[in-house]
């Protein structure tokens, strides 16, 4: 937090000083250049005049100096004042360059010495001209810069430190919040979320993203835990049954035939268990969307026809009328085996849950640009309250006494993989696979 504040304050101070220095340098430099240009002009003009005219001109120039910031003096070769407003030559003299020195003004009331920028140049008759400019103006400018630096810099400094502290504290608080949250996640608590304001800044948006990510992770974890519990539960019941059956079979079997009956029943039970495991693996694999790479154009009409043909003897044996209504349709991208598996599951369900000796209709129709495969029966259908549940793994309706409750979750997984929608009819018992969705 202090680092933030300090860094921001230091930056602001450095910037102010740099700005002031630049201003001072530029102002001072231009002042000196202007003064030197004036001096050179004085030397040139006065040098070319006759001595008497020169004195008169010098007086004229002093008379015109209404700001009283000019110093002019004509001196003999040995330094005696001939005329002017400076008492004597300054100690140091030099050639064409100007210099800063103290002079004794003779015509400034109340002032016996003054700092001036000066230049000394020789006249044509051997006398010397001292020309100069009072530095009071330049000093004043410098003082203004100093003053403005001090008065500007101190509040700026305070402002910078204050701003730095606030910004630093804010950043530190936000980072602390994220750190605290990650620590809790590492400890296994996925409930926590980062605070996001009503009008979030960029950090707030980042927090919102992190929260969304956590929501997804949490739902996945819950899913995984749930599936783990489900699997354990689903396998425990048939395993218990199997164990009891084998135990009793071993105890009671007195000939090879009854022993074989026990073993056969056991095998059947194990096959069911393995079926559950295989179906689970398939659902998971389908949800990984790994099989899409093998999609090819599929003729849904032929699939529906094959599905009907495959199930017709079973339907007949159960006294169910299986009706197929097929409307020709363009091929869709998909996996034929998976799609017919989904249809087969829906037909199985319809025959299982529909009324005995009823009707099951498998139809293929066009709805806009989508194909619609519908399996309908005469029954009441899936109760409204259970519709969102039936596609979950291991969900079994009240009337479902056999099966593992994986059929519809498999159908849903296959539909999702194909970008198809699974739709339950508002009334009656009809489940439709609709797709492919245009966004795919």
């Amino acid at each position, binding site marked *: 937090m202090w680092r933030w504040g300090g860094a921001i304050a230091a930056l602001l101070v450095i910037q102010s000083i740099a700005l002031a220095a630049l201003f001072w340098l530029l102002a001072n430099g231009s002042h000196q250049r202007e003064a030197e240009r004036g001096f050179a002009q004085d030397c040139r003009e006065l040098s070319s005049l006759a001595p008497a005219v020169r004195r008169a001109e010098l007086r004229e120039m002093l008379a015109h100096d209404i700001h009283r910031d000019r110093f002019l003096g004509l001196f003999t070769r040995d330094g005696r004042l001939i005329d002017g407003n400076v008492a004597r030559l300054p100690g140091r003299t030099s050639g064409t360059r100007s210099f800063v020195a103290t002079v004794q003004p003779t015509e400034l009331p109340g002032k016996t010495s003054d700092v001036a920028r000066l230049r000394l140049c020789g006249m044509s008759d051997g006398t010397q001209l001292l020309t100069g400019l009072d530095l009071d103006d330049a000093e004043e400018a410098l003082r203004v810069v100093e003053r403005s630096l001090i008065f500007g810099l101190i509040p700026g400094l305070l402002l910078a430190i204050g701003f730095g502290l606030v910004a630093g504290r804010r950043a530190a608080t936000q980072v602390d919040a994220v750190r605290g949250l990650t620590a809790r996640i590492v400890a296994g608590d996925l409930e926590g979320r980062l605070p996001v304001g009503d009008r979030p800044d960029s950090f707030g948006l980042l927090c919102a993203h992190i929260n969304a990510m956590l929501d997804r992770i949490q739902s996945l974890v819950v899913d995984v835990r749930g599936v783990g519990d489900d699997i354990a539960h689903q396998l425990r019941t048939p395993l218990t049954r199997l164990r009891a059956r084998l135990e009793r079979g071993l105890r009671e079997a007195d000939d090879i035939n009854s022993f074989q009956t026990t073993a056969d029943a056991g095998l059947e039970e194990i096959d069911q268990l393995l079926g559950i495991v295989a179906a689970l693996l398939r659902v998971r*694999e389908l949800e990984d969307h790994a099989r899409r790479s093998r999609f090819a154009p599929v003729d849904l009409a032929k699939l529906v026809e094959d599905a009907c043909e495959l199930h017709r003897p*079973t339907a007949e044996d159960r006294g169910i009328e299986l009706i197929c209504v097929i409307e020709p349709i363009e091929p869709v991208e998909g996996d034929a085996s998976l799609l017919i*598996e989904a249809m087969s599951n829906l037909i199985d369900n319809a025959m299982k849950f529909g009324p005995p000796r009823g009707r099951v209709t498998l139809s293929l129709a066009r709805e806009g640009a989508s194909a619609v495969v519908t399996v309908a029966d005469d029954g009441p259908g899936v109760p409204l309250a259970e519709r969102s549940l039936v596609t979950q793994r291991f969900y079994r309706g009240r009337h479902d006494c056999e099966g593992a409750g994986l059929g519809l979750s498999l159908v849903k997984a296959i539909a999702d993989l194909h970008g198809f929608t699974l739709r339950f009819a508002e009334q009656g018992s009809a489940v439709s696979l609709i797709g492919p969705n245009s966004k795919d």
Partner: protein
Amino acid sequence: MTHILLIEDDAGTANEIALELAGHGYAVTHRVLVSEGLAVARGDDVDLLILDRQLPDGEGLDVIERLRAEGRRTPALVLSALGSLDDRVRGLRAGGDDYLAKPFALVELVARVQALLRRPNETRDTRLIVGPLDLDLLAGIGTRAGRALDLLPRELKLLDYLVRRPGRIVTRSMLLQDVWGYTFEPNSNVVDVHMGRLRRKVDADGEPQLIRNVRGRGYVFDPSV
């Protein structure tokens, strides 16, 4: 004697497979590692490979790829506990001839082995006469000892498939895959219902059974009865 090389790292599974295959008259050599398996497979007397995907020293498919690169065409059956969908394709692409996902029934394994070792009778004949059966595929008519069987088109195809594989186990999943053309494990016994109807038509009361059920999972067409 037909020699099968089994490369499988789970001792229990390997033992069961070896015993089952031995029971069907095959000689089985069992190896655990890819390196050991390759050494045996390079011998000239191996008729069939059965290999697991995940082995202690590498990927079982590598064995097939190496053998294929060396020009050996020994048929291979890939076993895997990995997911069954894309994996099957990978296995077949790597040069495997068939693929069986764990867990599998032993009868399924034997059926696949038999299918790999003996190609079916793929004659283009449209008239098949085997034992008392006479199938006219063009006319869509089948008779048994002169008795018309009154077969539906699908039933004729099923019988055709069985008749071309006499004495060999044919499983539900093989029928669905080869006769219908779909690879999935139906929830219900739809294939068995088709087969039940076919059997009732082919084997009338009092006649010797030409089609036998094998342990609830497969069928054998046996014209020798």
